[in-house]
């Protein structure tokens, strides 16, 4: 029974079902607030996909991800509030800026071995926070940035309304997921996974480590910048606490709960946790009491997250059903590869 249900989830049509469900969501949401919560979950999911590229595929724990998210938000916020740019040019500028900074940070940090990279990025994240907080002439300091431009609908749609904004974010999310899916099936995506499985091994296959890692890092910071810019366009007000390292930890939790290195995991993890914490409002303040042990339990018992572990289990089951006794070497387990599921 569970297996039947599982194979439904793996069916190629499942992702279209999910998209239809997301498109219809505003119709059966009981109020606008729910649509708003869903839109913000989607914004976070886009950023989590970015983290998935560098941490999930490439295996480098990036602890500056929340910082890049905030950089995207601040680029858009400052350009629109202080320099009168409209949303879309500022949005493009935010993408370019986070990509460029991602390149700079990546070139320096990705030469570092495992632990050093995590520590370095932790410090980068903290420097971003301190600069946003202290560089008052540029960033307004602790007061934050107000009057951020909303996305321009060119007279056709009003993106200050929740429902149109929801569809805008959904469009970006679908694009982000589509791109991630393409990436995972491409040679580049497989190269990233080869790097995760071991630097030396990847190098022995003739993979240029620095070039590929930097590319993955730039892609990931651009995702973060995109999510940050959308966030600023939604909230219309940002402050230095948006660069708090807590956001990075949140995103790691979403990624891990859903399934690190999978395609549908980050979305399911993010939407799931955002909804659970939203519906249990009293949890909001103490959610870390649950998140903390959850992270520990996941890395010890389900290192591939719920989606990842489920996929492994499904794969084993399907092999059992397809070939009860004979043909042992049918397919190599996808246990360590990139999943091409919904």
């Amino acid at each position, binding site marked *: 029974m569970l297996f039947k249900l599982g194979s439904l989830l793996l069916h190629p049509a499942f992702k279209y079902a999910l998209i239809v469900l997301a498109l219809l969501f505003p119709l059966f949401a009981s109020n606008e607030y729910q649509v708003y919560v869903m839109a913000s979950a989607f914004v976070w999911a886009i950023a989590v996909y970015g983290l998935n590229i560098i*941490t999930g595929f490439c295996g480098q724990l990036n602890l500056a991800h929340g910082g890049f998210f905030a950089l995207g938000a601040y680029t858009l916020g400052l350009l629109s509030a202080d320099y009168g740019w409209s949303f879309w040019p500022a949005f493009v500028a935010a993408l370019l800026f986070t990509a460029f900074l991602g390149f700079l940070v990546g070139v320096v940090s990705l030469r570092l071995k495992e632990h050093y990279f995590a520590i370095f990025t932790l410090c980068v994240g903290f420097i971003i926070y*301190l600069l946003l907080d202290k560089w008052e002439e540029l960033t307004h300091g602790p007061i934050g940035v107000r009057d951020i431009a909303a996305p321009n609908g060119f007279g056709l749609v009003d993106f200050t309304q929740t429902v149109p904004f929801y569809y805008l974010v959904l469009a970006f999310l679908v694009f982000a997921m589509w791109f991630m899916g393409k990436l995972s099936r491409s040679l580049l995506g497989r190269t990233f996974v080869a790097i995760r499985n071991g630097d030396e091994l990847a190098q022995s296959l003739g993979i240029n480590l620095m070039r590929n890692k930097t590319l993955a890092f730039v892609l990931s910071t651009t995702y973060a910048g995109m999510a940050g810019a959308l966030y600023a366009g939604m909230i219309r007000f940002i402050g230095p606490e948006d660069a708090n390292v807590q956001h990075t930890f949140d995103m*790691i939790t979403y990624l891990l709960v859903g399934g690190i290195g999978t395609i549908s995991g980050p979305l399911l993890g993010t939407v799931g946790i955002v909804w659970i914490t939203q519906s249990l409002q009293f949890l909001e303040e103490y*959610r870390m009491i649950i*998140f*903390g042990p959850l992270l*520990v339990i996941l*890395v*010890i018992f389900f290192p591939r997250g719920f989606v990842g572990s489920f996929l492994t289990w499904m794969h084993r089951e399907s092999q059992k059903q397809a070939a009860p006794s004979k043909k042992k070497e049918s397919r190599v387990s996808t246990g360590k590869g990139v999943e091409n599921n919904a």
Partner: protein
Amino acid sequence: MNLFFQNIVNGLTLGSIYGLVALGLTLVYGILHIPNFAHGALYMVGAFMSYFLMVDLGAHYWVAMAGSAVIVAGLAVLCERLVFHPLRHSPPIHDKIAAIGILLFLEAVIQMFWGSDFRRMSSPFTGIMNFDGLIIPEQRALIIVGALVLVVALQLFLRKTMTGATIIAMAQNREGAFLVGIDANRVAMMTFAISGVLAAFAATLYAPINLVYPAMGHIVIMKAFVIIILGGMGSIPGAIVGGMIIGFAEAFGGFYISTSYKDIIAFGLLVLILSVRPQGLFAKGAH
């Protein structure tokens, strides 16, 4: 000129605290190869336990310090047993994520009981020593002397006792240590316990001249990481020298450059150093 000496005192104070925290971190890294991101949380819990014992239960400062050290050591051992021990054969990224999980949990628990307000913790050493115009508050003197005593005690423990020798043996050569029958579990627990004790002492020494709040470990742990990278991951003298470098850089940088950017100095230094020497300043070869 007096201001210059004043800055030296400030640098020594900061350096002592950072050095103690970094010492615990570098021990755990050097012996078990775990970059313990939760170490800052142990430091924070140490401060809160002292606060709890002193302010809520009315214990004496020294008693509170000892009690806090025992509690945090126990907590650190618990972390090793429940979290890092099961993960010893996992990919390195798992250790780090699990450590972040511990950090989030400890902070949330402390916040649940004490809230996120800033608190003040007093100590019996409120006097000020005046050496011909050079002013040294007693608490700062206590920090410097206390750190010195702890470092010497740790050295004596590692060099002169059998338990210390097993720890050193395992740091030098894991396989060799196993061959001669050293119990790896015992050494792992000892190492975590020592790192917890050092964190609790550092926090209790520093709390009276700073504030106590749940996020207080963040900056300190990041600086401790900067220090152990400076000093070579796993090196004990490196942690002490690195602590002093950061302490002085901050005291003088804060005075001569800018107070609001003084926290950036350490991180800027790290970014600079790792850009030039990816393996750290004094590292003999990364683990």
